[in-house]
């Protein structure tokens, strides 16, 4: 599957015609609310959405992703990985819509929020609207802090607490970044969540 890095834009609407991995890196500072939607209108297409972002101190992100399946036999995996520094926030709506005739749809949404600061806010609304049977749709969303024992282990190996935290955050994003199939897109995404 080829990967495509999406330009920052508040309204992104795509009707995919071939299997594609869409990668979007949040700028890490507050922007206008972002809408990213895939409308599946061609049968047999499989896509992936990967949204990554590290929200810097006091910054907020408002994001909506929509995976709208209008014809049979399409697949989509939506991933939203965000890390929250002190006082930052994320407000996310992730929709999977399966229309009446869209049999054999397979759609999954995966949202992970890693809290690395204090005073963070996180609103998540993963929504499923399913009008067809013979489909598979699911979502998983978790919010949690950097695990204390991970940090403890790394600091016992000689890292400072800050270095240890950075390493954990890097690992958090890397689990997604390594799935990006096209080399230059992968490198840009990796750099995007480091800053």
């Amino acid at each position, binding site marked *: 599957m080829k990967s495509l890095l999406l330009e920052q834009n508040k309204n992104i609407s795509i009707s995919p015609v071939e299997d594609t991995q869409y990668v979007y890196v949040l700028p890490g500072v507050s922007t206008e609310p972002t809408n990213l939607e895939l409308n599946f209108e061609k049968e047999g297409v499989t896509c992936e959405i990967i949204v990554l972002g590290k929200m810097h101190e006091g910054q907020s992100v408002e994001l909506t992703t929509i995976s709208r399946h209008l014809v049979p036999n399409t697949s989509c995996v939506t991933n939203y990985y965000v890390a*929250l520094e002190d006082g930052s926030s994320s407000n996310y709506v992730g929709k999977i819509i399966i229309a009446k005739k869209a*049999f054999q749809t397979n759609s999954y949404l995966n949202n992970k*929020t890693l*809290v690395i*600061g*204090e*005073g*963070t*806010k*996180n*609103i*998540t*609304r*993963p*929504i*499923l*609207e*399913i*009008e*067809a*049977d*013979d*489909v*598979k*749709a*699911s*979502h*998983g*969303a*978790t*919010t*949690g*802090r950097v695990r204390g024992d991970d940090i403890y282990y790394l600091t016992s190996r000689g890292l400072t607490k800050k270095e240890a935290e950075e390493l954990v955050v890097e690992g958090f994003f890397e689990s997604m970044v390594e799935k990006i199939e096209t080399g230059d897109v992968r490198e840009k995404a990796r750099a995007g969540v480091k800053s």
Partner: protein
Amino acid sequence: MKNNQLKDIRETYATKFGFNMPEAPFSKAQMGLSEDVVREISKNKGEPEWMLEYRLKAYEAFKQKPMPSWGADLSHIDLQNIYYYIKPTGAEKRTWEDVPENIKTTFDRLGVPQAEREYLSGVKAQYDSEVVYSSLMDELEEEGVIFLSTDEALRKHPEIFKEYFGKVIPYADNKFSALNSAVWSGGSFVYIPKGVSVKRPLQAYFRINAQNMGQFERTLIIAEEGSFAHYVEGCTAPVYSSDSLHAAVVEVIVKPGARFRYTTIQNWSDNVYNLVTKRARVEKDAVMEWVDGNLGSKVTMKYPSCYLIGEGARGEVLSIAYASKGQHQDAGAKMIHAAPNTSSSIVSKSVSLRGGRTSYRGLVDVALSAPNARARVECDALILDSISATDTFPTMRINESSANVEHEATVSKIGEEKLFYLMSRGLTESEAMGLIVSGFIEPIVRELPMEYAVELNRLIELEMEGSVG
């Protein structure tokens, strides 16, 4: 797979629950809602002045509030085409012999007296607007347990009533809590004293008999420190072509260290709009459990809530929804974490078939005052045919950095490979399907009192008409 041959579990409803008795009301308010009707209800009950004022304030709030613009379609409710108060008999009775014949026959057919003899600590039976029968085991009465109709509790225990009534759900909370607060009648009042553990369930049975009836029971439950009790309610109604309305308000206060379980098996006929507000206030180290089964009604909108306001409080909701032809079950749960180290769990299972629609709607809210909160939500939906639908609308609002929140939802149809495997082992398609659906709802069924679990399993037993293969 011939899913459309699935037998509807509600097919036998009309004969089993859908019967009605001739109306012979003791008194009946005029049709429709007005300030006069509100005053008449209060006067009929001989209530104190403060309650009349409360009802009138609530009625004002009801008039001002718009109908909900979200959730299920409520545009067909005609609020003026409903009787807001029908008193079926003179006074609450203590033995079934004293209950008027028609009413007694109804509850006999529903199996209430038998269940009471066999496994219950106490029973309330409500028929249209009033509780007509009430019992409680002597030893529980001696221990100080109070189990009365809410009307009787207002007369007999005015102080404790006034202290708690309307405190968990204010009348202006939403349009239907305002309506209930204006015209409430009947419902249960439960008081479990400190340290008392009620072993067998307390049960309330709600029956609508009259056509175009509005039932507005009001339940208030106080579980004192370290106590335990299990309250079970069941509801059915005759099948009519015109709509009825059921808008209850249930308030539960669970004091420190107490545990309270509230089980509902809602099996209204499919001409009933079921719009209910249920909320528990859960104090330090207390546990509140809602087991919420929605099988009946035309439209249900109900989201039992736990306000976890004491350190270490825990809330649990197990929810099952079944939507067949013409039904929309918009159900779910809300967990408000407002204190440190609170935890919550929501498990929802729904099945839609024959054009029915199930929606899970839920909220997990972690306030800044609630460090180390843990919450887990799991909702699964099965769609059994191509004309049915399902939605999932969860919200997680986390304002505290130390929270750990997980949410999972899946939607699927019964997998061909699972059916194939079971059939290759010798089961018929209908047996295989029944087994899979039973397994799907099992986490909820196993939490029900045994008698209900048997009943629900029997209801859910999905049969095929004509054998396949």
